[in-house]
């Protein structure tokens, strides 16, 4: 009798229990949104430790820590111009605890020029830290000092071009085809190696994302053209690639992305905190004064539109050049 009663009692409680569980599950998932962040965040940085980009990311991480009250653990995943980091980021949970930092080309351009396991639309884009100062550069001792002289020299001797990623390679392939020059593309590991290879006379020209600015003053490096859409702040005399008859420039940013599908509430809070961190005086000072990169901080909407439209350009260019 007693056991039957308890059984009955149990059975009558079962639906109640289930409802209660459902409610709790709902509450706790709502709670996960509201009390985010309740554990440390991971920031994946697509650059090797020690360089300017990594330093910028680490400074933002420090500011973000004080914004959110949780530690931000920086992990360097260098390689392939950010694609290794972006691949890892794609497979991370979209819970607001993992975010990635790289140049935009890892997200908008790379998927169209290299065989990758992610594409542009696998991510949400949060904000930028600074604008890159992309330039086509040569040694201060080069036998040419502007675009036309370079083309003339290239027609006679060919050119050796130092490149760090498939994107930077594509640009010069286009120039080679259009101007009828033989350009040999030499893979390089990073900005400093490129600067030294130029100064040491091992290559003729190269892509620089801005590191060249430290070498302009003593004349070791000269800028041939801006590869951004507009002329560069530090080299206002040199034309932009868009002025030389090419359809598009390669304006780029150091920026933050997260795996697609993060809860809206977390998205809002994380991007607001990131924007404040990226605009903080320490970050701005490092970017503007020490690295020579304009501290341009975009909203998520602006950045997303920028990335999606750039991706569209790359997709079209890739489709055109496909045989």
């Amino acid at each position, binding site marked *: 009798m007693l056991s039957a009663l308890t059984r009955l009692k149990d059975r009558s409680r079962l639906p109640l229990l289930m409802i209660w569980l459902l409610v709790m599950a709902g509450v706790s998932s709502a709670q996960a949104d509201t009390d985010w962040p309740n554990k440390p965040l991971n920031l994946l940085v697509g650059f090797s430790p020690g360089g300017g980009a990594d330093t910028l990311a680490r400074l933002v991480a420090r500011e973000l820590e004080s914004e959110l009250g949780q530690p931000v653990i920086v992990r360097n995943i260098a390689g392939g111009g950010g694609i290794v980091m972006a691949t890892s980021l794609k*497979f991370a949970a979209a819970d607001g605890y993992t975010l990635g930092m790289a140049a935009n080309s890892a997200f908008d351009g790379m998927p169209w020029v*290299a065989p990758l*396991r992610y594409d542009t639309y696998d991510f949400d884009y949060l904000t930028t830290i600074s604008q890159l100062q992309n330039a086509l550069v040569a040694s201060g001792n080069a036998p040419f000092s502007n675009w036309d002289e370079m083309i003339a020299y290239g027609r006679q001797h060919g050119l050796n071009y130092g490149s760090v990623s498939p994107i930077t390679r594509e640009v010069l392939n286009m120039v080679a085809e259009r101007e009828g020059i033989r350009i040999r593309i030499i893979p390089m590991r990073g900005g400093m190696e490129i600067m030294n290879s130029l100064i040491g006379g091992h290559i003729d020209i190269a892509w620089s994302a801005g590191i060249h600015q430290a*070498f302009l003053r003593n004349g070791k490096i000269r800028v041939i053209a801006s590869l951004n859409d507009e002329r560069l702040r530090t080299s206002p005399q040199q034309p932009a690639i868009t002025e030389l008859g090419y359809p598009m420039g390669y304006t780029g940013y150091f920026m933050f992305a997260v795996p697609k599908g993060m809860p809206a509430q977390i998205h809002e809070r994380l991007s607001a905190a990131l924007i404040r961190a990226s605009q903080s005086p320490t970050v701005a000072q490092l970017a503007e004064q*020490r690295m020579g990169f304009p501290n341009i901080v975009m909203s998520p909407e602006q950045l997303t539109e920028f990335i999606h439209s750039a991706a569209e350009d790359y997709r079209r260019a890739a489709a055109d050049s496909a045989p």
Partner: protein
Amino acid sequence: MHDLLLGLADAFTLTNLLYIALGVLIGQIFAAAPGVGALMAITIAVPFTFYLSPVTAIGLLVGINKGGTLGGAVSAILMNTPGSPEATATTFDGYPMSRKGQALKALRTAHASSVTGDALSDLVLFLVAAPLALVAMRMGPLEMAAVVLVAFVVVGGMVGNSVLKGLIAAALGVLLSLVGTDPETAGERLSFGIPELMDGLAISAVGIGVLALGEIFRQAIYHQRGSLHRLPDAGLGNPAQNHFGWRDYRHIAPTIFKSTGIGTLIGAIPGLGSTAAAFLGYASAKRSAKNPENFGKGDIRGVAATEAANSAVVGSNFIPLLSLGIPGNVAAALILGAFVIHGITPGPQLFTDQARLVYAIFGAMVIGTLCNLFFGLFTMRLFAKIIRLPLQLILPCVVLLCVTGIIVASNLFSAWLLIGFAALGFLMRMLDFSFVTFIIGFVLGPMFELNVRQSVLLADGNIGYLLDRPIACAFILLALVLIWRLSRRQAQAGKRLAV
């Protein structure tokens, strides 16, 4: 001159002294524990340096780096488990010395050689950083490829019983170094679709696995079987065997100077790093010795040659770092980051623009070397006492350190890699394959690949490109001569055997 005095005054402050001393101690202790390493200490310390003045910050990091090169010898000598590839050659004679009951003497030798190599290399940095940097800049892809070729040949020739097995191990090392992303096309290679492998196999997992954990597996298994061995007595109770005095120093001084020269040169060339320097130093000492058969059996010169060479890299590594902005290894890359944080742009203009700061950093390096000398006198004796603990206590602690260390430094995936490579290291020891050529292949493989590919692209099918480069030609010639001499020696040895 004015800048020199001002800079030195900036360096010699009480705050700096305290931070540098702290750095040296941290470096020694972190590096002495197998599987942890000074690199991790630097990684952890970098964020703290945000709050310090530039000279103090760089002093702290340089202190850790300097302490680390000495500390790395400790586990290599006492337990045959080098914490990082650069200390591998220290085990060749350091561990046999330990087994003979001369652990403390081996540690003191390492201390004396390390500090001497470091100090002399610093001196070279202070005096000729600028001109040497110009030489380094002349080293293009072809020159670098040729230098790596020489390193391969020298290390390959050093390896014992079977050249074929040595080559197989080296090829395996190179093969594993190819895992990751193609430097030219950014396509994935040998990564089997695993995102963690896109960046290649972590050097820490491969190094610690094969070098340290593989040896621990071997020791643990033999220990259980009872055929081996109590850890040898540190000989603390036997001062006669462990005395290291002025006469010993004079005995090893020529070896130290030679290794220092090798280490300094290699440090000045960006990218080769302390591992190559250590092996080349060891090989050169063994080759020029009158009785090379003593090497590997506990010859004090073996320890001296290795430690002087790998420590000499630390100072001269700053030549490409300061003058070209190229870090010679990961530790230097992290220090470069600290420079950027503090608004210092390394490069040719640094010496003219910020001479005072450069001299202050030199001053900090001098303090670091002195601290290393001073602390080493005490810590070496302290470390030697570890040996008195029973093996059953030490081995589990070391395994724990290795595994947690790798998770902190890298990720959980690397911990599985670590176990896999420990198994590989164990097998290589059992089957008598050289893990030395394996590691050298793994460390230098990517550099060799990239430089060869760059050279081929630059040459564009034109042999004139090679003939126009005397430095590269000289190194290639040197490699050929070395191969010829090695094969002749082997042929002679073969004949003798046949008779």
